[in-house]
Structure formats: structure tokens, C-alpha cells
């Protein structure tokens, strides 16, 4: 009696496990018409982040074009390397989309993974974020130049909020560093949000950050924007000077910022690429989505294919070499044949 129950129990367990595996594999069966079933969308970052919000905002505009649902799943980890590899290893039939940010372009030089967006087809690069350099109103600086002069006068005393190597503050810091001595104390946080909270509480002194997360704090006067990391003023921050005003040499890095896009395996059939590109292009042209992107403090891009590839390559070239020159890379960009900008 006892034994038979044990057997039953083991049987049920194995049925469940194989059931899960079965579901896992049937999702990959190939088709000629596309799409004939629901599509899986893998979001590179966790729920509540900028990539997540952007992905969930575009998807409802695209689904009617495809007549199918896109089921969104967050798969964070390894700074995006895990989801990138996961989607890349799936059958290239267009039923697994990667909703990603800029990170895979740096995985090579940071030694995380060899897969970057050159292995993918860019269905759509939806938007790019704008970075601003913000500080607390209690600090004396009212322009980037004042901050930079103070950094020079008091090396290793001023605290800069950061999000770790390869993160936005780090890269902007490296850009500032290319202007000469720039010795600050970088204090890394888990993301834009926690870094801004620390800045609001005065635990760090300044922060290069995505505009999205800081916009309302700047508007309410709780934070001061010293410069926009762009080559011209942006309409949402009319009185804040672009970084190129004081530092014209920054032009060579720009446009630079985090970006958000949708990608599929490069090996996918052509009709799949065309269907998806059309659907996402249509979705990203929706005025309501464009309004959302603007509210989100980003610049709509809506580019795909060749045009997107060029953007991605330039971004990778600028950023990896900046990081390499700042000594933050594990492998040289030359190993990956990334040309110097």
C-alpha cells in the first residue's frame, strides 16, 4: 500500500516535469504562415524598469496588426545576457521576440557574453533616452562647468551616483573624463530610481541619469539639471543647456543614450522579418505611442533593418571605446572588430 503510493507520487512528478518540458518544446514548432499562434516577448529587464515600461507600452499597438497576442515575460539577469542568449538559442521562427535595451552591445567588452545585436535583426529601435546631469539644489553648482571646475579643485571628494560599470552614469562619467582630470567618488546603486532617491536625500552630490526618471524632480525644483547630454536643447527642458555648449568636443559621442528596441534572431525567414517590421513600424507610428515616448522623456526613433544596424554599430563603437579608454573593459573592442569612432 505504502509502496504503491510512492510509485504514484513519483509518476505524477515525472508527468508534471515532462509536461512542462512538452509545453516548452511545442512552442517552437515551425510554420510557413506567420503568425499562426501567439508570440512570446522576452523583456530583458525586470518589471517596473524603463525597458519593461517601454515594452508594455508598445505591445498593445502592435498586437492588432499581427492578429495575435504577444505574451510578455520578464527575464532579467546577467545584465541582459541571459535573455539575449535565451532568445538567440530559440528556433529562429519569429515566435520569440527580444525586448531589449542597449546592454548586449557592451557584453563582449565586459566579458559577459559573445552575443550582441549583430546576431539579431532589429525589428524596431523604438526610442532612445536622453541623459541629463542633475545635482541637489543645496550644492553650489548651477552649470556643468561650475561642477567640473569644483571637481578639479577638490579631486576625490565629490560623490557621483552611478549604476555600475557600463551603466549610463558610468559612460557619461567616462565622457566627462575624456575632458581631462575627473576624479570623483562613484557610488553605485541598483538603478536610476535608487540613485535618484540617494541624490534627493543628499547621499550623493550629482548624478548623470536618464531624463525619464528625473524629469518631474527637475520640474518641481527638487533637483537641478546642469546639462543635457545631447547636441541641442530638448523641448521638455528648454532652459537647460546642451552639453556641447561648454564642451563642443562632445559632439563626437552624440547622439548617445540608452535605447529600447525589439529584436529577433537574424536567421528568421524573410517573411517573418517583414511582417514584424511592418507591424512594429505601424505601432510605433501611433500618435498615442509617440506621445507616451515624449512623456517618458525619450526621443522616438522607429527605425529598423539597415538604418537600425548603423545606429547600433555607432553606439557600440562610441561606447565600447569610451569604456576601454577609461579602463573599464575586460576585453579590448578590437577583439570584436569594433572600429574606433
Amino acid at each position, binding site marked *: 500500500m505504502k509502496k504503491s503510493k510512492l510509485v*504514484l507520487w513519483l509518476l505524477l*512528478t515525472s508527468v508534471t516535469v515532462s509536461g512542462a518540458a512538452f509545453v516548452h518544446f511545442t512552442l517552437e514548432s515551425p510554420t510557413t504562415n506567420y503568425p499562426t499562434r501567439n508570440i512570446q516577448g522576452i523583456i530583458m529587464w525586470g518589471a517596473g524598469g524603463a525597458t519593461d*515600461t517601454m515594452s508594455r507600452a508598445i505591445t498593445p499597438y502592435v498586437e492588432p496588426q499581427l492578429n495575435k497576442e504577444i505574451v510578455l515575460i520578464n527575464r532579467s*539577469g*546577467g545584465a541582459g545576457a541571459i535573455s539575449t542568449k535565451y532568445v538567440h538559442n530559440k528556433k529562429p521562427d519569429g515566435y520569440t521576440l527580444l525586448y531589449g535595451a542597449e546592454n548586449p552591445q557592451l557584453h563582449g567588452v565586459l566579458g559577459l557574453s559573445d552575443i550582441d545585436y549583430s546576431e539579431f535583426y532589429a525589428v524596431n529601435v523604438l526610442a532612445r533616452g536622453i541623459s541629463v546631469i542633475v545635482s541637489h539644489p543645496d550644492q553650489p553648482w548651477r552649470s556643468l562647468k561650475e561642477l567640473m571646475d569644483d571637481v578639479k579643485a577638490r579631486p576625490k571628494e565629490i560623490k557621483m551616483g552611478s549604476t555600475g560599470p557600463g551603466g549610463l552614469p558610468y559612460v557619461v562619467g567616462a565622457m566627462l573624463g575624456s575632458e581631462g582630470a575627473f576624479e570623483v*567618488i562613484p557610488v*553605485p546603486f541598483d538603478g536610476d530610481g535608487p540613485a535618484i532617491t*540617494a541624490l*534627493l536625500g543628499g547621499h550623493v552630490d550629482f548624478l548623470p541619469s536618464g531624463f525619464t526618471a528625473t524629469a518631474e524632480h527637475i520640474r518641481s525644483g527638487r533637483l537641478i539639471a546642469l546639462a543635457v547630454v545631447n547636441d541641442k536643447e530638448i523641448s521638455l527642458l528648454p532652459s537647460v543647456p546642451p552639453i556641447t555648449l561648454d564642451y563642443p568636443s562632445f559632439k563626437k559621442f552624440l547622439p548617445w543614450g540608452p535605447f529600447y528596441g525589439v529584436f529577433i534572431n537574424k536567421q528568421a525567414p524573410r517573411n517573418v522579418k517583414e511582417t514584424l517590421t511592418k507591424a512594429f513600424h505601424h505601432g510605433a507610428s501611433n500618435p498615442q505611442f509617440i506621445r*507616451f515616448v515624449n512623456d517618458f522623456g525619450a526621443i522616438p526613433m522607429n527605425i529598423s533593418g539597415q538604418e537600425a544596424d548603423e545606429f547600433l554599430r555607432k553606439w557600440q563603437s562610441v561606447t565600447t571605446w569610451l569604456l576601454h579608454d577609461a579602463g573599464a573593459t575586460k576585453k579590448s573592442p578590437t577583439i570584436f572588430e569594433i572600429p574606433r569612432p
Partner: protein
Amino acid sequence: MSQAFEYFSMGWVDPYLFFLTALGTFAGIYVGAIPGLSVTMAVSILISFTFAWDVNEALALMAGVFMGGVYGGSRTAILLNIPGAPSAVVTALDGYPLAKRGEAGSAIGLSTVMSFIGGLIGIITLMIAAPIISEFTLMFAPRDYFLLAILGLLLVGALSGESLAKGIFCAALGVTLGMIGLDPLTAEERFTFGNLELTGGVPYIAAMIGFFGIAEVFVQLHHLDIKPIRQNLEKILPSWKLVKKYLPLSLQTSGIGVIVGALPGTGGDIASLLAYDHAKRITKDPSVPFGEGAYEGLIAAETANNAAVGGAYIPMLTLGMPGDAVTAVMIGALFIHGIQPGPLMLTETPHLFWFTVGNLTLANLCILIFGLTGIKLFSKIVQCPKGILLPIIVVLSVVGTYAIQNSVVDIYWMFGCGVLGYFLKMYGYQVAPIILGIILGPMIDVSYRRAALSVQNDIGLFFWEFLSNPISLILTASVFLILLNQFRNRKT
């Protein structure tokens, strides 16, 4: 004031909004009860689902799901020893022993009433003190988070059962497991052996399901022939006398819940841990020893995690900053609905604050109603023959784990942790300190290094800051007092 009341009652007088909040709470309870289905996930899915809706309708539904989900986690924790959510880990410590003693009904009844009280205190605090508390939480520096995590880690003494050495071993094991993956500050790989899946770290909900649920199933296999205890279902609602007796305790633990919930970066899981610790310290003689089904332990956990909901809304509504993972998703939802979350939200979309307070109050009331119905049916689950119950638990664990992020690797982790947990249990080790370590380890790691970096690794300055700042000073003093106290208790 009348304006505020008008906004507050928006969700009460509009039948559709009322219905949505109630529906959200109901659905939330069941989502929360299923391990692996988290409130964060549910609210994320609701973003697409409510995309074309009016923002008020979306927020009403989400508030219900949030409130209900946090409460729902306690169900499976009490009945099956599988916490439905990380914030219900502590609930399992005393809830499951109660169910094993045949008091599942009264345990659920008590946890429902206490969740209601905790939730209510969270809401009241949000209502009257939101701006003050949000300014207060901004003052928490990295070193204060470090001290807070140390305070939590001292709980290991309370969780280690028969042997403190074994408890410390398990906590260290948890901390080590929590270290696996990419270094959160430098993105350096730690203990990954070049394996990409390991760079994602130990999926800690999968580990939790393994250590609690699967390990318990394996242990139960030894007792297949023992008949389950008959559940006493006479008395479900806790008596007024009982509630009154524990009112001071529940007020204190709710207070801890609100503050910890309002701190960005800490949520219901850490809130309930700290509250449990507090309860264990101030209770001189509990109903039965902690860990064996003490009402005090259950009360602390359930009040704190529901109070943390109101707390998490505080930074979201006053500053536009998330108080936890769920409110982070809600901030995304606000963006999509064309509202700019930020410090100006209070003045520019004034209805949002009181409307949310109203919804939460309604959702909290719904918890009391939905939570107290169907208890008899649920308690019968524990009476199920083990030959039927145990396979169901395993199936539920596998499905729940897979659902976290559709990853088969997570299922391996879960079974691995389950087997490890089984052997640990057989040799008298407790699994709770492992979870404590996994939750607090990374927090100690990053906040310590952040604090050290802020002072340029100057050790003198590092310690001086512990004493020169009021919040740090209070936290440092608490850590020392607790240590001293434990030392003295051990001597006598």
C-alpha cells in the same frame, strides 16, 4: 477637506469601480496564494490588460490585486508550508505548525483579521503622514540600510531552533547562495564557473519553494501512514479578547511594516522579518514557543506585510519613486496612462492620492470579507490523505516555479534546494535562516560597500558616520542593545 472626501469616495460610490476593486482583491488573494505567481507579475500583466481603460479603473483593479495578493501569500504558507510570496515566509514559521496542530482554521482567521488591522494602519499612516514619512525615508543613507540588514540578520538567533551553530551555518549558506551571479556593483561574475545561467543568480522564489515546500514533502514521505490531524473548525474568528490582547503588539509590528515598506528598496519580506524579530524580543511568554505555532509570530508577520502595502504607496504618491517592486510597475502604468509620476503629482492630479487611499481602504475591507469566507473548505486541504496532497503540492511547486520566468533551470534549482532542504531538516537544521540569508545577504553586501565607497574606504570615517547621524546612531544602538541583551540572557 470635502474635496478629499469626494475623491476618497470615488471608488465607493461608482458601482463599477467598486466592483473592480473587489474583483482585484479576490483575484489577488488567489494569485498571491499560488507560489511563483507574484503580485508584481500580476500587476505587470494588468498593464497590458487595462491599457485602453480609464486610469482610475486600472488603478482600482491594481490596488485590489496588490492588497489581496500580499494577504493571499499567507494561505499556502499556513496550509502547506509553501509561502505564496516572499513576504509570507515568516507567516509559515508559526502558521504551518498551527495547521499541523489542527488549528488551520483559527490560524487563517487570525491572519485575516491581523492583515486587516495591519493594512488599515498602513492606510491611515499613508493618509495622515505620507509627506513626513517620505522625507524621513530619504534620510536613510546606505549605511542605514546596512544596519537595518544587520538587525534583520540578528534574527538568526530566533530562527535557528535547537542549535545556534546550525542556524548560523544555514544563514551563511543562504548568504553564499545570494552572492551567486553578477556582482550588483561591478557586474563581476561570482561563483558562476563561466555558466551563463548562473550569472542570473539563484532565483530566490524558486529556492524558497524548494526549501519550504518540496523539502517538507520529502519529510512527509516518512510519515505516509500517519493520519492527518483532524482540523478543529469550531472557532475560526479570533475572539475580541484575543484581538484586544494582541492590539499593542500588532500596532508596533504594523508601524515597523509601514516604515520598512516606505523605504525604497525594502518591501514586505524584510518588513515581516524585522517585525517577527521585534515580536520575539518583546514577548516574554508567548502562547507557545516561537516557531511552534505562536500566535505572536503569526500576528507580527501578517500585520507587517500588509502594513507595508500602505507604506510602499507613500514614496510613490508623494515623490513618484517606487517603495517596492509592485509600486515600480504601477509607476510605469501611470506613465502609459499619460500621468507623470513625481513630486508634483499631489498638486497636479490631486484626486490620485485620496482616490488611492479610498481604494486601498475598500480593498482592505474586501480582504476581511473574502478572507473569512471559505476557511472551512480550505482547512480541509490539510486533512486530505497525504497520498493525494503531496503530489498536488509538487505539481503546484513545479508549475509555480516555471511561471516565474518560464525557465526550466529554475525548476532544477527548486528541486535541488528541496533535496538539500530535506537533508538539512533530517539533521536538525532549520531552513528559515537560509531564506533569511538569501534575502539579507545581497542587501548587506551592497549597502556595506556603498557606505564604504561613500567615505573613500576610510575606516575611521566609516565608523564615525555610524555615530554622527541620528538615524544611524539609533540603529547602531539597537544592534548593540540586542547583542548585549542576548549575551546576558545566555549567561543566566
